[in-house]
């Protein structure tokens, strides 16, 4: 009991500390000061009256949503003796594997720089800045020569690293035994079996309504669809993030999806957010990064060639180029097993006051990265909102799909879950694929790293 109470106080203190730096805190303060004019706020019961005012005016709900958001994103405080790297990834061998993988990426990027004699970053001359500003909304029409650039890595390279992941304390043995995993992933992470998955995804059960299944044309809408849409509208009217998250487990009506996702991620387009996006845009105009060429190449190779996504090409540049400049993304490395690459200002190698992260957001894009943004373009058409949604989804979910970690929602666990389920419930298919050299994970790695949202 004692331990739980002190854990709770620690969580509360952590959340309060995080929220103190936010826009919401400043707004609440302003509202509190302004409310002193109101007749119902009495001096002798100041605290209680202001709390009541917040409840009635909807500000308490906004605070609730912000707290819920923090709880969803930030991991619970761990043991006080645990060092920060333990919070990123508790297993030492996985940390080491992630470190070596990152080193390979750095070497690859550095060698590309040296071969092409292009700096990692440079300030754009004024003329070039003006030119870029003019064609900001149609960067897709640009056809720069990207033939010399190559993606830093592709999902299949990453899969090779995952296949070779080994726990030094795990007895693999030379001969095939009960210890050997028949799939590609050879680390014994805990994955759920079907009964546990049934409990975890209880809303997908046969007796619960689900949009996409129970709203097909043969099913009368009075049975499920109408009521579910009505509840969705009510959830949006209440502006409650936690309720929206629960509601959406039974599917989201197409018309409400954009708003529901924004509510769950606690994204509301405030003037400050639009200003922040404009600031990022200015950063893109002023500085040219090598990473920009990688983004261009990736968009041209993937989304532009896709029947569904080619129309969104311009949006993709507007989001991804700004994303690379966003230093607020650095915060997620506290709970990501990955670490942001470092560099030094030219001529100041080794001097800590001239150390910077590269790119500013610490994320080096790989082949297929733009496909994380592409589906969101169907829902959001305003660039700053689209940007906010993508950034929040990245720091909550997408980063787990391309970093080596033991987290249950990480790519290693997902691959192992896929292989284990296939092996258990479709053993003949699994065996056949193995025999013809088409290991199931190799076939589906693109899908797993791109379309799976935990």
């Amino acid at each position: 009991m004692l331990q739980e109470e002190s854990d709770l106080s620690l969580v509360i203190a952590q959340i309060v500390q995080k929220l103190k730096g936010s826009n919401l805190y400043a707004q609440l303060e302003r509202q509190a000061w302004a409310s002193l004019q109101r007749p119902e706020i009495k001096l002798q019961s100041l605290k209680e009256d202001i709390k009541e005012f917040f409840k009635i005016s909807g500000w308490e709900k906004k605070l609730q949503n912000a707290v819920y958001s923090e709880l969803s994103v930030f991991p619970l405080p761990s043991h006080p003796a645990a060092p920060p790297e333990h919070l990123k990834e508790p297993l030492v061998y996985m940390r080491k594997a992630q470190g070596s993988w990152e080193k390979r990426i750095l070497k690859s990027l550095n060698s590309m720089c040296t071969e092409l004699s292009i700096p990692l970053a440079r300030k754009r001359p004024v003329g070039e800045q003006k030119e870029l500003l003019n064609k900001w909304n149609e960067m897709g029409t640009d056809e720069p020569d990207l033939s010399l650039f190559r993606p830093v890595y592709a999902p299949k390279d990453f899969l090779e690293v995952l296949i070779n992941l080994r726990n030094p304390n795990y007895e693999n043995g030379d001969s095939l035994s009960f210890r050997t995993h028949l799939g590609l992933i050879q680390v014994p992470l805990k994955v759920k079996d079907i009964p546990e998955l049934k409990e975890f995804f209880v809303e997908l059960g046969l007796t619960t309504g689900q949009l996409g299944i129970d709203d097909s044309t043969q099913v009368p809408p009075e049975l499920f669809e109408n009521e579910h849409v009505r509840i969705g509208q009510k959830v949006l009217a209440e502006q409650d993030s936690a309720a929206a998250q629960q509601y959406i487990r039974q599917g989201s009506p197409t018309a409400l999806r954009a708003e529901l996702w924004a509510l769950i991620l606690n994204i509301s387009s405030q003037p400050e957010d639009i200003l922040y996006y404009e600031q990022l845009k200015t950063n893109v105009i002023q500085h040219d990064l090598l990473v920009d060429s990688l983004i261009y190449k990736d968009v041209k190779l993937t989304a532009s060639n896709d029947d569904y996504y080619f129309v969104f090409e311009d949006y993709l540049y507007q989001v991804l180029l700004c994303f690379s400049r966003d230093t607020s993304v650095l915060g997620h490395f506290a709970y990501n097993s990955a670490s942001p690459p470092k560099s030094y200002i030219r001529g100041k190698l080794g001097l800590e006051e001239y150390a910077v992260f590269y790119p500013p957001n610490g994320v080096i894009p790989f082949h297929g990265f733009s496909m994380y943004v592409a589906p969101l373009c169907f829902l959001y058409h305003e660039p700053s909102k689209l940007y906010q949604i993508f950034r929040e989804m990245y720091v909550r979910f997408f980063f787990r799909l391309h970093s080596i970690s033991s987290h249950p929602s990480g790519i290693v666990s997902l691959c192992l879950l896929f292989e284990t389920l296939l092996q258990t419930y479709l053993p003949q298919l699994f065996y056949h694929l193995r025999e013809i050299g088409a290991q199931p994970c190799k076939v589906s790695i693109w899908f797993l790293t791109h379309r799976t949202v935990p």
Partner: protein
Amino acid sequence: MSRVSVPCHVKGTVALQVGDVRTSQGRPGVLVIDVTFPSVAPFELQEIMFKNYYTAFLSIRVRQHTSTHTPPKWVTCLRDYCLMPDPHSEEGAQEYISLFKHQMLCDMARVLELRLILRQPSPLWVSFTVEELQIYQQGPKSPSMTFPKWLSHPVPCEQPAPLIEGLPDPSRVSSEVQQMWALTEMIRASHTSTRIGRFDVDGCYDLNLLSYT
């Protein structure tokens, strides 16, 4: 609650195994670690902290000092505490753990020696142990202060001067002023921790290569 680390001597692990260690195929599933406190008098144990390394279950036995002339006996204070919910998988395998005296089965008032019994029934792991073992006892209580006489024995209230007509009640005003002061102090004490968002150094972001360190 303050706590003080107790210097301890951790003896080498002893494996318990049936049969001959050399010829047996399997690896031991039970290890025993003895912890002694050579330079410390019998103390009250507050907390045991360690980093797990693939141990599935932990039992702890303690030998305590007894006031009578009987020799101290071994008593089990923790039985089969689960560190890894599934001994065959990685969950909990490398976690930091703290065990407190209120979790123990017996009183931990005069500890002489501890014996940690580690169990790992799964044959999948090459070795298992616990690392960075630290034992804590209760820290010293805050020193008692002597209060000046007028604080500990306040003079009985004097009769307040009669209220002048039209002025508010002074005790009410003072409580309201107290509340306002508390609020202003809170606002003054809070500070934001937002980053400014700059990624360059004085407007310069000219970089050549990435650093490997």
